Each structure stands twice: as structure tokens, then as C-alpha cells.
């Protein structure tokens, strides 16, 4: 019944067996214990489960794990280099861009994917980049300020 799934997550290859109905978010959280990725709705509406799949922001509750076979995935656990936080993570800390923190992984992955694709987004493009992600605490504007600060080069990439 279970099928083989090969994934590379945060640079680490995994070879696991999952049911055909297993969602990617379930594979990450329940099989690989990467619980940084959250799950807020199961209907691709809240964005808490956003990860990067082959460089693109994807809601991991919106695809089956087996559809991601062979993919390269980055989750929130893969953003820091060793103990050095990514520019966006540092900017989120400085700007208070999180409160309860439950949407934060999704927000960081959505904005990381945005800057990978478009390193100089306008404010409108930043807003569009996180429109699929709900934050019930911050009102988004502190997140937009953090991303803007990174775009302006205020934070250096870890080596």
C-alpha cells in the first residue's frame, strides 16, 4: 500500500515510504519530524504550511507527498546556515514581524521564495507575495517592513 518517496529536504536526502493519500505537509511533519512547517487549514487557504519546492513557494498541504518525489525542498529548518540566521530571519527579529509565530514559517518561506525569484520587489509585489498567507497577529505591515529592509541590503547573507 505504501510507496517509496525520495526527497531532498534542506540538502539532506531521505528515502521513506508513505501512503498515496499522504500530503507533503504530513510527510515533512509526521515522517521527517520537521515540525517547523505548520498546518493551519488543510485547504491551501492560510499559507502556514508554505515551503520551497524546487525554488518555488508551495503550500505543502496542497500536494500529495508522492507528487514531490525527487524534488528538492527547503523548509524553515533549512534557512539558517549553521547558527547564522538568514537575512530575512534577522529582519523578522528586528522588526517584530511575528507574534504567536504559527504563521512565521510560512511567511518566511513565502518571502524567501519571493526574493529568490525577484530580489528587488516593490512594496506591491511584496504584498502580493504574502497575500496567500494569513497572519492573525501582526497585521502584515511589520513583515512588509522586514522584507523591504532586506531588499534595501540592510542584512548580509551568511557565508
Amino acid at each position, binding site marked *: 500500500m505504501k510507496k517509496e518517496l525520495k526527497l531532498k529536504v534542506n540538502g539532506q536526502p531521505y528515502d521513506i515510504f508513505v501512503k498515496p493519500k499522504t500530503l507533503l505537509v504530513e510527510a515533512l511533519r509526521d515522517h521527517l519530524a520537521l515540525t517547523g512547517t505548520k498546518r493551519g487549514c488543510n485547504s491551501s*487557504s492560510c499559507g502556514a504550511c508554505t515551503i520551497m519546492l524546487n525554488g518555488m513557494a508551495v503550500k505543502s498541504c496542497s500536494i500529495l507527498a508522492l507528487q514531490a518525489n525527487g524534488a528538492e525542498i527547503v523548509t524553515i529548518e533549512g*534557512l539558517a546556515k549553521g547558527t547564522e*540566521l538568514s537575512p530575512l530571519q534577522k529582519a523578522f527579529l528586528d522588526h517584530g514581524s511575528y507574534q504567536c*509565530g504559527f504563521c512565521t514559517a510560512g511567511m518566511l518561506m513565502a518571502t524567501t521564495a519571493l526574493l529568490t525569484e525577484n530580489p528587488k520587489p516593490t512594496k506591491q509585489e511584496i504584498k502580493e507575495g504574502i497575500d496567500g498567507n494569513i497572519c492573525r497577529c*501582526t497585521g502584515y505591515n511589520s513583515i512588509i517592513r522586514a522584507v523591504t529592509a532586506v531588499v534595501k541590503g540592510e542584512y548580509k547573507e551568511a557565508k
Partner: protein
Amino acid sequence: MSEYSVIGKRVHRVDGPEKVTGSAKYTFDLVLPSMLYGKVLRSPHPHAKILKIDTRKAKRLVGVKAVVTGKDTLGRKQGIWRRFPELCDEEILCREKVRYIGDPVAAVAAIDEDTAEEALDLIDVEYEPLPAVFDPLEAIKEDAPQVHDGVELNININRHIEWGDVDEAFKKCDHIREDQFKCSSQAHVCMETHDAVVSYDYGGKMTVWTSTQSSYYIQRLMADMTGLREGDIRVIKPPTGGGFGSKFELDSAQFCAAILSMKLCKPVKIVLSREEEFTATKRRTPMYYFLKLGAKKDGTLLAKEARVITEGGAYTAMGATALYLTGFFSSFPYKYPNYRYDGYRVYTNTAVTSAMRGFGAPQSTFVGESQLDMMAEDLGIDPIEIRRKNGMTPNYEVPGQAFIQSCGLHQCLDKIEEHVKERGKLPPNHGIGVSAYGFMSGGIFNWFDTPYAFSAAVVRINIDGKVDLFTGACDIGQGSDTTLSMICAEELGVRLEDIRIHAADTGICPPDLGAWGSRETLMNGNAVKMAAADCKRQLLEFAAAKMAPNIVYDFEIKDRWVHLVDRPERGVSYFDIVKGAIRGKDGNAIMGRGHYTPHRKGMISPAYSFGVQAAEVAVDTETGRYKLLNVTTAHESGTVINPVGIEGQLEGAIMMAGGYGFCEDQPMDEGKILNPSIADYKLIRSLDMPETDILEIDTYEPEGPFGAKEAGEGLTNPTAGAIGNAVYKAVGVRINDLPITPEKVLKALKEKEKKKK
């Protein structure tokens, strides 16, 4: 060295690194060895008798470990108004009758969620549907179905507040307005749904990990419902993904997991689905509001009368408090010499209504600020001017109710007036609406019947100078862990990184009411400050003995430097003093205790915050759609402890309170909520979020720690009213029922056109 060294500084939250790296472990993430997964079966009927529950088939399913119903409980009813047994009306696992769609009837524990889900389908429940009632105006009629037996006219509770001579005062008014409003419901939409892991062991002890706003409430209520002793239940709050008023009552995830775990002596985890979160947890109280307001020609408000009927839903919950607070805050923030409030909370066969950020005050502020603008227009007075003329001032007594010490309302009005003037002449169909508000810094009421101090803290200093702070305060995202750590560091004279906070674990922290009513900065802040001061006193005793200065000098600690206040260069390192002081106490770590319970502070709260907000909208008259362009808030919350925290509270409140005015709603059909998903429940996303500007006003609250007061819930009060007033300014239509949707605006525009013709 008198300036603060920690408070007022822009710091990283103490839980920041774990939250931005995904390493924070929420209840949602917890997995224990041999843990089982639970699911809850809920009523599909709004009102029905339970004739029979057959669980045999479900129990036979491979992987199912236990199935429980109301028969497996002690059959008790619980509620958060513990002083009033008649208001403890919720069984959680219903035995004889269900009262709303979503009322729990059974729960299953199995080896995984899929199996538990499958088992739910195998439970046969035989119901006898009963006539149901959904609208409080229907439920209050003589022949309406009875939601709870013996409750006359389904009136759950009523509240009366009065001062002055209202009827006489109306006779003296030059102008009287009577208006009706309808305030909608709202879902909290915490990003982490309600969840719990409960582990009951063979030794008879229970540990509960849960997403909560009050570990102590859950501990106490769980003890009431299970018959265990309070001390045998340890409730731990891991990082919590939002609360907003939805998470301080005992809920079905916690209780069902507990009953299942007690059957099995194994840990059981229950996570509510998003649909359950929308349909079977509490929500904001919908209210019918009838307002009468009387004024003199010059705009002096002489009398106000508010009559309110609220949709209670099936049980009492915290709705009784919301009923009281909406009545009190209907008088805010103005000096009414004569005021009367009558509120009725009515049981209905709908999902339970209760607390939500602002706690009745967003409703009263929306209706009050809308009507005040209408009154100003009738009298030909500027909206800011009428607020200035009647607004509360420092050291004002709300007759027989409350004493207001600090109050920066008038400075806030000045700032917002400047802001509106600066915007100058607006383009066509643009409008700016203002709304003034106030809120409490924690409630004084004790219907929970706690025998403990409202807040308490313990501070322990270790040999290396690291400080452990123990508090029952619950950080649900609002940042109390950071704010309280800052208060502790400031009082003790150390750095923020010297503090390690241990919060909301009943096994090690003193009991505390938790995070509701915007209470933690002031109440927990005072307790923490007292505990830190206790430690400091012990350190300074040793410092005085060691340094032996002239007796006229006294000591202080700032930034880890223990010194003479008048000669700051004469001092000793904090770390050296700690080492010596511990030696001088036979090796005992330095311990300090603090507590806070408001005494002689009136009936509502020890302190109040104030503010004025201006919302700017642009209306498309073709479609009725409008954009929230900018929301500017002049706010005063006493001394600002944590500026980054306040910005976050303010901007976040605008998302939630703006949503209340703009789009959030829970339409129902025969008690069924029609939009129980995030796809269908519209809330403000980044593209709809307005610009948010903050104008800070300096005040100092004598009752608060370092002069601080609340900065959390009050910010949810003004926005719906400001939006309503802005839409009116923009296109001349007034919407009296929330939310102010494009459909309603368009309909009103068309009616206005018709009238012109």
C-alpha cells in the same frame, strides 16, 4: 543614571530565535511515546435529545483503543463563572441533550488520526430532534423553544448599570436620537487551532500540554470536571499560536483527551480541525443594540440609554462578562452625567458566543461612535469637537463605577485633529472617519472564584547572576514573556539576557488568571516588579554590609552595577554581590515573591487606556466596494515598556478590528455556520491591509509597573466605528449593521439615489 536601561528599548522578543527558525514546539507539534490520537463526534442537530449512543462497532475497529461518551464523565457541568452554579451549564460531553451543531457527544482514541476519524463514522447516535431557536429576539418570546430547562424566556443573564437620573435628563435635552444597530459575530481564527496532549499516569497524576490563555483556569476546571485534585493536574502551555479570547475556557480537545487518557493511562492528543474551530469553539458575541442619546445644542451630552440583547448561543461561557463590559464601555470614553444600561444575554441553539479581543467593547464602540457622529451632524458640530467637549479627563470618576487616573484622550484628539487637517481636501468619494475609545487594564471581577492573588511571580537569582522568572502569565503571541522579562530586568538592574522566563506551567509557576481583559502588563507586571524588588532588597542588604558607606547613602542597581545612588561611580559588580549574598544565606539562591490583586479600584479595572483613531476610505460608488487606505491611531498606554510589542499589537488589532468592520462575518442557516473554512471566511489579507500610522502619546499610570497600562485589547475597539464614519463621510450612507460590506453600501447608495428623485 535615572533613565531606564531596559524598558522602552527596541529589543528582540525573548522567544524570537525559536520562532523564526521553526524550532518553537507548539502543542500541535508534540509527540509522546505511546501517544494516541483522539477525535470528537459532534451533534449534527441544533437541538435534540440523545436517545441512545451505540459505540460497539467503533470499539471493534482495529486500532481503536477507547470510545467515551457523557456516561464516562462524572456528569458535571462546568463554566468559567464558577461563583454562580446556575451559570455552569456546559457538560462538554453531552449526556441527554445537544444544544448546537457541534456540541460534542462522544470521543475516540486510536493509534492514528485516520483510524479515529473512521471510528467516528461507526458510532450510532439516535437523536430526537427538538424545535430550535436561533435568533435572540425570537428566543426571548413566550412560546420559544427552551434551550435550557427552567430558564425563563431563555434569558441566561441580565445586567443593569445606572447612574444619575436618566429620565429627568432626557427632558432637559435639546436633541435626542434613537438608533438601532446590529453587531455581527466574528471568529478568532487563531492560526493554531485548539489542541491538547493529555497524559494521565498510573500514579493518578495528569499532565496537560495545551494551547491556552490560562493554564490555571484549565487546571482548576479540569479538577472540577474530573474529580482530581488541583495539585494532581499540571497544565503546561507551550508556545501558543494565538488566543484572542478563544482559549481560556476548558474546551473539548482538553476535556475529551483527558477522559480518554484516564481510561487508558496513555497520552492522548486531540487537535481540532479548522472546521471544528469555526463551528464548535466560541466566537464574538453578536448584539442587537438600541441606543438613545440626548444632548444640549452646544453638544454637551446629558444622557445615554443603551439596551442590548445578545445572542448567547448554547452556553454561558465568558459571554456573561462580555454582556457586562459592553454595557460599561457603552459609556466610554465620555463623561455622561446620566447613564443607563440594560443588557440581556439570551440562549439560542447556535455556537456559543463568548470573549473575543475587546470583550464587548468593539461592539459598544462601533454603535456609540456611529451614533455620536450622527448627533454631531444633527447639531452642526465637528466630530472631533463633540468628543473633546465630552471626553474623559484624568482623575475622573465614572459615577459609582470606576476611577480613571491617567487619561490622555484629549492629547489623542489633538493629534488626530492635526492628522485630519494635514490630509486636507480629499478626492471625491474619499472620507476620513474618527472614533474614540478606551479600555481596561485587566478586570477586577472574580466570578471565577479564585482564592489566589490575581497575579503572582517568583524570581530566583542563581550563583552566576542568571535570573529565573516564574509567572503564570500566558504569552499567546502578544509578547508578555518579553514585556515581563523587561520589567524584571529593569527592576533588578540587570540586562534582558540575564532573565530566563518560565511561564504558564502550573507545576512550577504561581497560579494566575492568565491572558484576558488586557491584564498582563499591569497585573503581572506589578507582580513581577514586586518579586524583582524583593530580590533586589536582599542583594542590597548584602551590598550595604559589604561596602559600609555612610548611612545617608542609598543603593541602586543599574545595568549590573550595584552602586550608591548619589555616587554612581562607587559600586560593585552585580555578579560579585550575587555570589556574596548567596553565601550569606547559607547557600540558598536569592528568591523574591510578588503578587498583585486590585483593591479599592472601583468595580471594573485599576487603570484605563485611551485613544482616537482615524480611518480613511475610498468608495467605488458603482460597486459599493471600498478600500481601507490608511488607519492612523493616537494611542496612550502609559509608559511604553516594549515599543516593538505595542506597534505589533496596534497593527495587528487593525487587521482584526478592521476585519470586523470590513468583511468578517459568520452567516448561518438554521444554526449552521455557512463559511467554516479559511477559504470562505473572509479576513483581511496583505493586499487589503491599510497603511497604519501610530501617534504615541505620553502618559503615566500611577497604578501600573513603571507607569504602564494596557496596550492589547483596547486597540480592537475603534476601527469598525471609524470605518463606518469614514464611509458616511465619503458617500453619505450610514450602515448600522456589521460588517459594512459592499452589498450593504451599494444598497444604501441606491436607496439614497431613490430618495433624491
